């Protein structure tokens, strides 16, 4: 008999039910999905591409031809925003997975092995926490300018993981005293296998929630750095570079050039945070606001 796949896990169904009960979280998830569709499928439907110039329309207000108007150079604003949104979303996602991943490995190793592993990791965490990340990325930006934006993502996550790692470390400290971890150790399971198989899965709710919330904070970091010209470099476009290019028009009649990316950015971050909150309440009901249980 082949062991059949576990029954539809009742826990995941319970989590889903709890998540669906939170209307705002569902709305947030819907919005995030909408943004993905907008950013990745939008360009296939929309008439204009981000790198297409319309020489008939420079700095035009919204019209049926260009839904959100055009820039000074004749680029279509909506197409640019779609392109910028793509980059921001992908940076947020990769960065979040990366930083939560680093945090999980570093934190779990520090907590599980203790001794010098722990001391080195804690020292590194403390060091990175006191370094001004914004400044350092800004200084390093000439180094990676002209290369792929992935280096930028790497740098962003390198300054994002520390707090999470600390939480993971303390969770590991208490979890390694749990009897099922002892049981694995006393059968001779190797340490890394214990971490990967027993310790990390048992804090998966925390890691999932953390990764989700990291998405929005990474997007914001990216936008902030790009705004000052230290982040995503042309020819790449992100929401940050778009806002940087057009913020001066905010108070002019061409304000739409600024308001579209800015408004979508706020909405995106809000939506991601709503999903994160909803996930936390669904995965970890005791951490929420509580009330009458």
């Amino acid at each position: 008999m082949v062991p059949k796949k576990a029954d539809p896990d009742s826990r995941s169904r319970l989590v889903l039910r709890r998540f669906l009960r939170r209307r705002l979280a569902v709305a947030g998830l819907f919005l995030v999905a909408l943004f993905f569709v907008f950013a990745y499928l939008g360009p296939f439907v929309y008439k204009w591409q981000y790198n297409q110039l319309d020489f008939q329309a420079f700095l035009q207000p919204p019209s049926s031809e260009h839904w959100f108007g055009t820039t000074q150079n004749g680029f279509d604003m909506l197409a640019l925003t779609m392109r910028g949104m793509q980059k921001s979303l992908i940076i947020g996602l990769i960065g979040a997975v990366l930083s939560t991943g680093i945090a999980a490995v570093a934190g779990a190793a520090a907590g599980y092995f203790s001794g010098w592993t722990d001391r080195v990791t804690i020292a590194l965490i403390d060091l990175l926490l006191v370094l001004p990340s914004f400044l350092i990325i800004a200084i390093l930006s000439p180094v990676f300018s002209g290369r792929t934006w992935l280096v930028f993502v790497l740098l962003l996550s390198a300054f994002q993981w520390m707090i999470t790692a600390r939480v993971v470390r303390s969770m590991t400290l208490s979890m390694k005293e749990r009897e099922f971890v002892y049981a694995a150790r006393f059968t001779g399971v190797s340490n890394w296998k214990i971490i990967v198989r027993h310790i990390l899965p048992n804090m998966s709710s925390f890691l999932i929630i953390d990764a989700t919330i990291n998405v929005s904070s990474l997007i914001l970091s990216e936008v902030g750095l790009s705004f000052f010209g230290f982040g995503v470099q042309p020819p790449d476009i992100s929401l940050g570079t778009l806002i940087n290019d057009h913020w001066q028009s905010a108070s002019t009649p061409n304000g739409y050039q600024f308001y579209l990316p800015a408004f979508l950015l706020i909405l995106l971050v809000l939506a991601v945070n709503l999903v994160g909150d909803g996930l936390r309440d669904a995965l970890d009901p005791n951490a929420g606001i509580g009330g009458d249980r």
Partner: protein
Amino acid sequence: MTAQPLLEVSNLSVTFPSEAGPVAAVRSLSYHIMPGEVLGIVGESGSGKSVSSLAVMGLLPSRAKITGSIRFKGAELLGQSDKDLSTIRGRRISMIFQDPLSALTPVFTVGDQIAEAVLIHQKLSGHAAMDRAVELLELVGIPNPRQRASAFPHEFSGGMRQRAMIAMAIANDPELIIADEPTTALDVTIQAQILETLEKARETTGAAIIMITHDLGVIAGAADRVTVMYAGKPVETGAIDDVFYQPRMPYTLGLLGSIPRLDMAERQPLTPIEGSPPSLINLPRGCPFTPRCPMRIEKCEQVEPELVVLNASGAGHAAACHRSNEIEQQNLKSTDIFPAPVIGEPEVGAVPRAQREAVLELRDLVKHFPLVKGAILRRRVGTVFAVDGISLDIREGETLGLVGESGCGKTTTIMEILNLTTPASGRIVVFGKDTAGMTAQDRFAVREDLSVVFQDPQASLDPRMPVSSILAEPLETHGVPAGERTARIEELLQIVGLRAEHMSRYPQEFSGGQRQRVGIARALALKPRLVVLDEPVSALDVSIRAGVINLLEKLRMDLGLAYLFVAHDLSVVRHIADRVAVMYLGKIAEIGEVNRVFSLPAHPYTQALLSAIPLPDPRKERARRRIILKGDIPNPSDPPSGCRFRTRCQKFAGELNDQQRQRCIDEEPLLTAQNGPEGDHLAACHYAESYAVLDDVGGK
């Protein structure tokens, strides 16, 4: 009797709303208690015993739906406002909770908290209230009460906190004290102290006591009448002797038959109650015990039996069973109803002990933990002498019980063994190999033969893994080919009495007893020779324990296993072990063959320990003379000089003269043979003297 009952509960039902449906926690419970009487309410977890007492106190959350009536001296309590109830609570009815740590506020001194309880209900000056608090602390046996009154709860030990709780409960001379599992969180010697204090409190205040517990032994000695609850309903009630000697409901019979007895030399068969208590959501109609009852008939599934008074076996003795009359007429015993497997001795038992191979040897094992202070500049400020030179050995196919109270070093000992590292001092020899010379590969190889079952089945199984992965882990680690694993897992499940289809389930879908069986299956996966059992049944409900104990015995017999059985429950140890080692503060106080140690204990600590354990036998329990130890286990970082037990020793305090005492203070007693110079019954006492504690029923 014409007197008015102190408390009369009739038709009390409590229902909680929940996501899955209403939870019927208590269903039509009726009982009464006369002034000065002690009523025991016995039941397993989830039987509604605590909820019903919280209902009496009016402490249930507002979403609970309560119906019926609770009359205190004729006045209805149900429906009264919280404010009105507050004039009764603490003054006329008071409560003692299970967990004395969370029952005291950590930021106020114990004296202040007791004084507060006084001040709420009595018009006294703060000064007078404090004096009263000191007086109460003295009454419950706290040494230096005036000084201790200004201590904070964390400076009190568990037993002292529970005494403080009792002091608070009797502060206003209540007429009724509800004690909800007052001794469950405590060690046996402390439990004996607390039970004695409760008895004293009852004598001074004349209060009636409702004693809620799952421990039939505790009830047997203390209560006048008892009510047994199951699935929210009383199933049997009556005078204590009637219920204990003539139980008429199969559940009570099974419960009484499932406890190993400390006072039985022979291995009596234990009657396990199959299955587990029902969920209180959507209870089927009919008797909730039906699925677990070997006497069920069709009617049981149709109609839930009412509590019916049986006249033949004592006045007021009532049972809720359709077949009580049959049980009564035939005077059935638990072994007549429940299948009680008779388990023989393992084959290896035929070989004399001395000729068998030793699977584990400890020689003067020492484990000290440094106490350090400071975060960056760590300096050693002391040492915890957790294990301080213990020697023992386990032969093939043998069960050694390692017993002692919390903090005696049992857990440290088994952790040292299981870690297989070189000890700070002394030797650990497993299957003839010394851990000192072991390489990583050697250790890995030893782990195949050495496995462990932990106390808490919930915590010892990874909640994220289905049973198949849990059982596959040791197989995979030790290189059993993937093709053979499934067959082995099925075999393992069958050995421990589970079914193959349980494989795909997660631990949380099992009951406590089943989970522990999965834990045992995991320990057996690699066909070990020595299994370390760390309190394997103490986290389980009473009715389920017997099944697990029987399983462990059967496995030992079938597979020729050797067990290191760590427990604080001496009755279980007497039932299962061949030899027993009693630990006190990191040292072995007494070691020897189990029947000899239990019938003729030579060390005063073993004697006190045996005497402290309540027997589920009311007559014996009332007649017994109890040795009550003073105080708590000393701090293991600062053990007493000479004999470590002397600070609490009844012999040291009562029988010895000054010269003899000096020897206890100066000289550490060594383990010496008690049964002839070559004997293997050893005790570490200068003045060891065998004394048949369990047979001493001559007393009051």
